[in-house]
């Protein structure tokens, strides 16, 4: 049985995913970035079993590259996002589990969240949709205000082996 504290943490994990989606859709990119820990990774791999150390990926960002990505989205010379994409992130099928035994509500405890994601993007009169399965790994006490921080976000696109037109908004 999950402890009461653990059950509370599980609900908090789901809340982070929903909040993340809303921050992206509202263009609050700096607040979105603050959800990620300083050792975070954000990945959009080309295959489910990709090795981040030696395989190419669509996105393979450490924290610094993630900051660069936000900087770029804010830049007036980022032509690829002029005009910017509007997005709706639909998060569903969330399953949450502690990553290891022990008190899952204790600071430093790790959680995993599996979810499905559908992103609608509208730009220049066209709407595109992107479906994905996501994995979030989160650490208790490492996020904003001592809450959950995202240590890893992995977006496994359904169309990961398709030749996509540029996808430079955040999934």
């Amino acid at each position, binding site marked *: 049985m999950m402890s009461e504290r653990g059950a509370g943490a599980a609900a908090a994990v789901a809340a982070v995913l929903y909040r993340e989606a809303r921050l992206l859709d509202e263009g609050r990119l700096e607040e979105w970035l603050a959800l990620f820990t300083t050792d975070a990774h954000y990945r959009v791999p080309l295959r489910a079993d990709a090795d981040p150390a*030696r*395989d190419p990926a669509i*996105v*393979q960002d450490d924290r610094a590259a993630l900051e*660069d990505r936000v900087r770029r989205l804010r830049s007036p*010379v980022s032509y*690829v996002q002029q005009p910017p994409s509007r997005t709706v992130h639909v998060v569903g099928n969330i399953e949450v589990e502690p990553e290891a035994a022990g008190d899952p509500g204790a600071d430093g405890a790790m959680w995993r969240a599996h979810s499905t994601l559908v992103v609608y993007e509208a730009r220049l009169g066209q709407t595109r949709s992107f479906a994905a399965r996501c994995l979030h790994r989160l650490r208790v006490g490492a996020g904003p205000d001592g809450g959950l921080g995202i240590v890893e976000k992995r977006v496994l696109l359904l169309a990961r082996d398709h030749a996509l*037109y*540029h996808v430079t908004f955040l999934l």
Partner: protein
Amino acid sequence: MRADRVHRAVYTDGELFSLELERIFEDGWVFVAHESELPRPGDFRTTQLGRQPVIVCRHTDGQVRVLMNRCMHRGALVCREERGHGASFRCLYHGWTYGTDGSLRSVPFPGGYGEGFDPAALGLIPAPRVAVYRGFVFASLAADGPDLATHLGRARHYLDLILDAAPDGGVTVHPDCERYSYPGNWKLQIENLLDGYHPNFTHQIAFDIAEDRRGASGRRANREESGATARALGNGHGLLEYSGVNRGYRADDADSAAYRVRLQERFGAERAAAVLGADLQLFIFPNLFFQNARQHYRVVRPLAVDQTEVRAYPYALAGAPDAVNARHARDLGWWASAAAFGQPDDLEAFARCQEGLAVTAAPWVLFSRGLDRERPGPGGEVIGDVTDEVPQRGIYREWSRRMGVAAGAGGRT
């Protein structure tokens, strides 16, 4: 007469596009695969020559075959996977089965065919010509024409410089590639791969970020008088030559030091220095591009007059440090994926070009930059400063020759 401009129809006219597929992609030499994608007999991958589906496979004799992917019975693709391994190709429709040499091996219920039925005449049709240069497989649907070495011409000099960076036996392509597409004509991409004029504008934000993170970017190299050059190599091939301006192998770790020694042992000090210093963007007409500083090649595929797909393949250099090979594969997406910091801004430019080219009052696309300062180089090269449109003029000289149609107007007004 030197063409310094191209008519907008070259990018927007559907009939010209069909003619391009016929006279360029379904006629002369086109890159189809690298041998390392097919290491064992029975390995295959599928691709296209122009509009036409082909199978590239390795037969039991060890030879790479290029076969038209079309059942000789009723026309279905006999190979429906992008890549794989198998002893034969079996049509899903009526079960006709072909060997990896294309031969028709079995036909279900053969008694239904009369005595004149000749399975030997019903093998998959091979591409009329297939040739391999250092592992790179090219095919041509034309029975006659210049051989591959003649087609590669001066480009071979630079291809060798790129491939000699593998002192222990060539390159191995990564099983995964980056892919992207854009709503624009295919030539917008090939012009861009040899365009040293645009990076400081299109890629300003990528250069800002690269300089802040790594202390270097392509900013200085892509300026007039940087010492870098843009070259037309003949036959439509082209080059941006940054050697001595950009980096090369600078890593100071023990593995990189051992790699440099290995190159010197293999090729001698002078050649090793040239290989290590080479920083090249090489385009081989009509569909293959190398950027050795990012250790990958790209393949451009026209889908429609206004729709193009590109794949970027990282490769490992045999004999180079494992960490270097892994890093190049891992980092390719920073520049060349659909979500990258670099290439997407180009794709946006291509899409906006395709839209702007609808303007009929301005029929000409200008490639006159550097016309007054281009100079002859070794092996028939034409050389300009890196921001000059020398390679683009070279592309369109070949385009006009192959198409039998003038791409533009000669001279200047």
